[in-house]
């Protein structure tokens, strides 16, 4: 088990690393060894301490105890910059780069090519375009990064780190918002770097990806090291047991259609609904107890569809009815009043309110729905919060913790709880399982099923086709900001969805980047 018994190849060694946040012991005596030229998976449940380990190693957080050796010499970087200077490049989990700067500036910030102290803008752009081309991304690098989708932003962050990585490259959940094609490209780049002798640490919740690319695996649980194994020698079931500390009940990837639900009546209907420059007019009927999946490439208009349905964008054509009555959805407030809910895709900027506690985040939508004059008492709030913390297994189970201090996966669960607390009739979930660990992933999918059984209508967006196929009763396929196809019942499977997406031939990834 002690990999450092082969000292010649140990590139990055972490010994006895501990880190506490107040009373919370996020890391306890963790050891970790990265060899030169390997791709090493760092796995664990949400909140296991993966991101904390990374940030403590790179000096973003000061460590409590422990040592870090890089190539045999002890290092103690005190800031992200010092880590980069030492040869450790990192894509942090929550990093979105700087949306106000151009793509090129983001790639070269702090190391722009200069002449006489002036930045050589043209040269920088040329290099940026070349660098991104390696990732099969052909965009105008002079545009502000904020004009591009999350996927593009993530690739940019990765490209920057790859370009900087001298000895070690750390990627904290880089694939959470990438589609298959982009993941392929990323993996190719990672392999190339590993061949050059660079050590890569890879954090993900996609176990398939772990088995596809990683040489070895280190598992954390509750801030402790559980074990370090060769990937080839670790069966998947065993890995999951290491991560969760228990068996995972049932698997998630089989189609649940076996149990055919009878769809209820229509609870919300959209006719010719659309907005110029956003999504072409579409017809959509949502029935009680039915899950509708939206599938498509990045940028195909799924998020826009969700936002239109929820009133976050105002439709300029078509009509909407709820329970048969025509309604106007001018704002999210209207939508909430009609019993809609929406978990947005960008958790940090559009979902959580970082300073507020888990309790307050959970009751927020319910309170907004009830109105100002009917405040939930403290006891009611606590009751609701505790109920959902239990139901969704939010960790740590402390309602008074600011949500910003929770791990990403747990934040996602709190957002789900926020809407469940309003007992909605229609729930729109945009990438609900992004960044969520296997255990929680299974739970969320189980929840989605249960919610439907209780008569909720669901509209779910996910880039994971397996997942969509698993729970959807109907799948709507989008391309180029229009609804182009609809699959139902037995017709729903991954290859059919893929075929529909690619219906007019080679649209492929290029469509997403157009």
């Amino acid at each position, binding site marked *: 088990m002690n990999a450092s018994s082969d000292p010649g190849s140990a590139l990055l060694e972490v010994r006895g690393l501990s880190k506490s946040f107040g009373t919370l012991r996020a890391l306890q005596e963790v050891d970790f060894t990265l060899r030169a030229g390997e791709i090493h998976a760092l796995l664990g449940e949400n909140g296991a301490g993966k991101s904390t380990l990374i940030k403590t190693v790179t000096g973003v957080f000061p460590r409590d105890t422990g040592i870090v050796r890089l190539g045999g010499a002890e290092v103690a970087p005190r800031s992200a*910059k010092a880590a980069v*200077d030492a040869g450790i490049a990192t894509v942090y989990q929550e990093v979105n780069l*700087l949306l106000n700067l151009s793509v090129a500036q983001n790639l070269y*910030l702090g190391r722009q090519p200069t002449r006489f102290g002036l930045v050589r803008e043209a040269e920088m752009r040329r290099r940026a375009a070349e660098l991104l081309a390696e990732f099969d991304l052909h965009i105008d690098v002079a545009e502000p990064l*904020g004009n591009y989708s999350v996927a593009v932003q993530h690739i940019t962050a990765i490209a920057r780190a790859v370009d900087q990585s001298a000895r070690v490259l750390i990627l904290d959940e880089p694939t959470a918002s990438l589609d298959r094609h982009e993941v392929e490209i990323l993996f190719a780049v990672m392999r190339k770097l590993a061949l050059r002798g660079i050590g890569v640490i890879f954090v993900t919740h996609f176990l398939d990806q772990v088995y596809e690319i990683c040489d070895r695996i280190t598992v954390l649980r509750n801030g402790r090291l559980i074990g370090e194994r060769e990937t080839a020698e670790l069966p998947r079931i065993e890995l999951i047991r290491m991560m969760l500390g228990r068996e995972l009940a049932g698997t998630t990837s089989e189609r649940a259609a076996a149990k055919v639900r009878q769809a209820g009546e229509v609870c919300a209907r959209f006719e010719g609904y659309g907005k110029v420059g956003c999504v072409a007019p579409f017809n959509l009927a949502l029935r009680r107890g039915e899950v509708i999946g939206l599938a498509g490439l990045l940028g195909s208009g799924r998020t*826009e569809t969700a936002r239109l349905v929820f009133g976050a964008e105002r439709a300029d054509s078509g009509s909407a009815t709820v329970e048969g009555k025509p309604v106007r959805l001018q704002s999210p407030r209207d939508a909430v009043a009609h019993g809609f809910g929406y978990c947005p895709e960008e958790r940090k900027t*559009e979902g959580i309110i970082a300073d507020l506690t888990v309790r307050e985040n959970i009751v927020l939508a319910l309170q907004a729905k009830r109105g100002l004059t009917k405040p939930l008492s403290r006891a009611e709030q606590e009751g609701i919060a505790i109920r959902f913390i239990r139901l969704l297994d939010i960790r740590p189970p402390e309602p008074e913790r600011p949500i910003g201090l929770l791990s990403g996966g747990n934040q996602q669960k709190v957002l789900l709880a926020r809407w469940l607390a309003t007992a909605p009739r229609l729930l729109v979930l945009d990438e609900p399982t992004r960044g969520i660990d296997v255990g929680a992933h299974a739970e969320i999918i189980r929840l989605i099923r249960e919610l439907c059984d209780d008569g909720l209508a669901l509209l779910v967006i996910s880039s994971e086709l397996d997942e969509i196929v698993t729970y959807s009763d109907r799948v709507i396929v989008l391309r180029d900001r229009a609804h182009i196809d609809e699959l139902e019942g037995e017709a729903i499977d991954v290859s059919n969805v893929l075929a529909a997406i690619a219906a007019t031939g080679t649209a492929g990834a290029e469509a997403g980047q157009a």
Partner: protein
Amino acid sequence: MRGLPPVAITAMVFVAGFALCTAQFPNFASTRVAANLLTDNAFLGIVATGMTFVIISGGIDLSVGSVIGFTTVFVALAIERLGVPPLVAFAAILLLCAAFGAAMGAIIHVFDMPPFIVTLAGMFLARGASFLMSTESTPITAPLYSTVSDFALRLPGGGRLTAIALIMLAVVAAGAALLHFTRFGANVYALGGSRATTALMGIPVGSMTVRIYMLSSVLAGLAGIVFSFYTAAGYSLSAVGVELDSIAAVVIGGTLLTGGQGSVAGTLLGVLIQGLIQTYINFDGTLSSWWTKIVTGILLFAFIALQQAMLGIASRAGPRKAGVLKS
């Protein structure tokens, strides 16, 4: 380029305003008025340039007005009472200002305190220190002063492009180059985008913060020197409230107070728009003290509303960026 559309809009607003003034007062459109606009607002243009950096980086500097006041008193006393050669006095005060700004930046960064409050304390401190030096207005009689104030490029039509106007234009040009074409400038924008992210990207946030406030204070000191040329005196109460004027100029110039966006050219336009409003009121000459305030407010509102409306139209005409929520 970054920030260009708002600047173009601000420029159009300025031109429209100037045209309206000319329509009402025929001798408004003269080189004299135009040159006065530059000379009279020279010190404001210089501080506002520094303020642009601070605001784009997501901060604010309330101390600049007091620093100008302090500088005028310091320079006047050094030259008149102590007999220090003017240029030496200038060097000394600029160093002092640099240290002052660096201290504010360091406190902001190290103790993680809001810039608004730290620089507010700086404002009290600088003003208090100038009271301690002298509460009386001290005239400066050094020959350099009369040479500088006599120097001017004569323009056809009676306008005089004075030395201090030229200094201001040079500072604005240098500021624009620094902001838009150097690593330092890119880091300033980055800080305004997000401090935390900038730190994670390996930019030394602390030293950047120190340098930004240092720049602002040094430019305030330079503005103080220019102010002392303008009045040939040092006075502890000079430039009261200039911090608000310069913040307003920066913001009217299209820079977001939340940071991350803006330009020096816009700031210059913001300064000129404010100067235009004042000149208009002076030309009118019938306004009582209170109507002066009210009309200034109304014109400020008119400019901002016009700008807001044009920005709205511009963004509606342009391609819609998906997923961007208006807020």
